[in-house]
């Protein structure tokens, strides 16, 4: 690439990034007037830039900050005003080191664990989940396996468990009446979640999900894979509260 070409691209990109001096901006303005190819390149990059800028930032999960502060020993009411000084600092650092190690090990485990490990873990979770009989249950065939959705009523709480035995990612979109059910935990923070709706993704590496709600009421589930809707079911419509 020639020096002239490099300079042209540097000016166009610098303009997009707001990093040009007044003299550079003037040079770019002259260049764009004279050079239709420069205008074409600038317009293409500007469109890409506009699309990137339009991507909305994601909201962190509701429980992330409390989890971080707790891991650091800084949960509200925990650290402030209690034992300031080197000894307290040392305790916090030690707690953070231990908890940090656990998080790193946990992340590494989740990323490198084998399917056998996951199958065993899934079995353990499933064993715990079925300790109480579900109020409603449905099994939906998906490509190469099935999705099992179970609805449990525990006093004034509702728990929904989802498990997939298939290999392809399964998207589950749930809808409920927000005047009778209030989501908690993952049901409130999952992808696509908003009032009256939640989302979950079941994958081979993470095939189960448990979602908690306060209140009791039916939940409609739309099961999707590869962008296609596979089935729609309603759990708990006739189940006794």
């Amino acid at each position: 690439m020639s020096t002239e070409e490099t300079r042209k691209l540097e000016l166009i990109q610098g303009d997009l990034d707001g990093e040009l001096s007044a003299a550079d901006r003037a040079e770019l303005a002259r260049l764009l007037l004279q050079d239709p190819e420069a205008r074409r390149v600038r317009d293409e990059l500007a469109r890409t830039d506009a699309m990137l800028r339009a991507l909305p930032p994601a909201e962190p999960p509701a429980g992330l900050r409390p989890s971080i502060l707790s891991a650091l020993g800084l949960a509200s009411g925990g650290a402030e005003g209690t034992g300031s000084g080197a000894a307290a600092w040392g305790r916090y650092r030690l707690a953070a080191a231990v908890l940090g190690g656990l998080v790193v090990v946990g992340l590494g485990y989740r990323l490198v664990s084998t399917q056998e490990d996951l199958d065993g873990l899934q079995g353990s979770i499933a064993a715990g989940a079925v300790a109480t009989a579900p109020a409603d249950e449905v099994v939906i065939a998906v490509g190469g396996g099935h999705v099992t959705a179970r609805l449990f009523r525990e006093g004034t709480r509702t728990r929904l468990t989802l498990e997939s035995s298939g290999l392809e990612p399964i998207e589950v979109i749930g809808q409920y009446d927000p005047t009778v059910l209030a989501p908690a935990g993952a049901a409130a923070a999952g992808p696509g979640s908003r009032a009256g709706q939640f989302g979950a993704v079941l994958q081979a590496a993470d095939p189960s999900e448990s979602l908690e709600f306060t209140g009791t009421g039916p939940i409609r589930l739309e099961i999707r894979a590869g962008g296609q809707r596979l089935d729609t079911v309603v759990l708990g419509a006739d189940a006794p509260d």
Partner: protein
Amino acid sequence: MSKDDDAARVQECLRGNPQAFATIVERYEKPLYNVALRMLRHPEDARDVTQTAFLKAFQGLEKYDPQFKFYSWLYRIAINESLDALRLRRRETDPVDDQYPSDGPGPEDSFATDVAERGLLDAIDGLKPDYRAVIVLKYFADRSYGDMAGILGIEEKTVKSRLFTARQMLKDRLADMGSL
């Protein structure tokens, strides 16, 4: 919060008031999570990386050099943690391919109804991590060339070059998808 505010909070921590770090968590939780999410495209991994980044920063505050911006150091930890997570993921899924293939649509955008948005996220996901990092820092952390150079430990001219190449790749992929 300015660079000086960050530095003051760090000094407070080092003087024995660790609670001052809570302000830093509050300030950088969202940008760090977004950086990790766009690097990894997986909410659970992004959550873990964000938490690990704060923990590592907290544990290593004495190693922080105040002549550099604190947030650059924090972003650097998050980016490095994200790259490590990508390497682990790659080793697990494809031990021979030296490219970084797209994992396909990730769960974080599985419910995106906007086809163009999903296409753009797919295109970002298809970039090699070095190129993805500059796009993520530019568009999801709003960092300048100088900041990115500090965060990534590379020269500013390398930042510009990677950013230009990454944009060209994204433009070509979006054009192929018919999104441009």
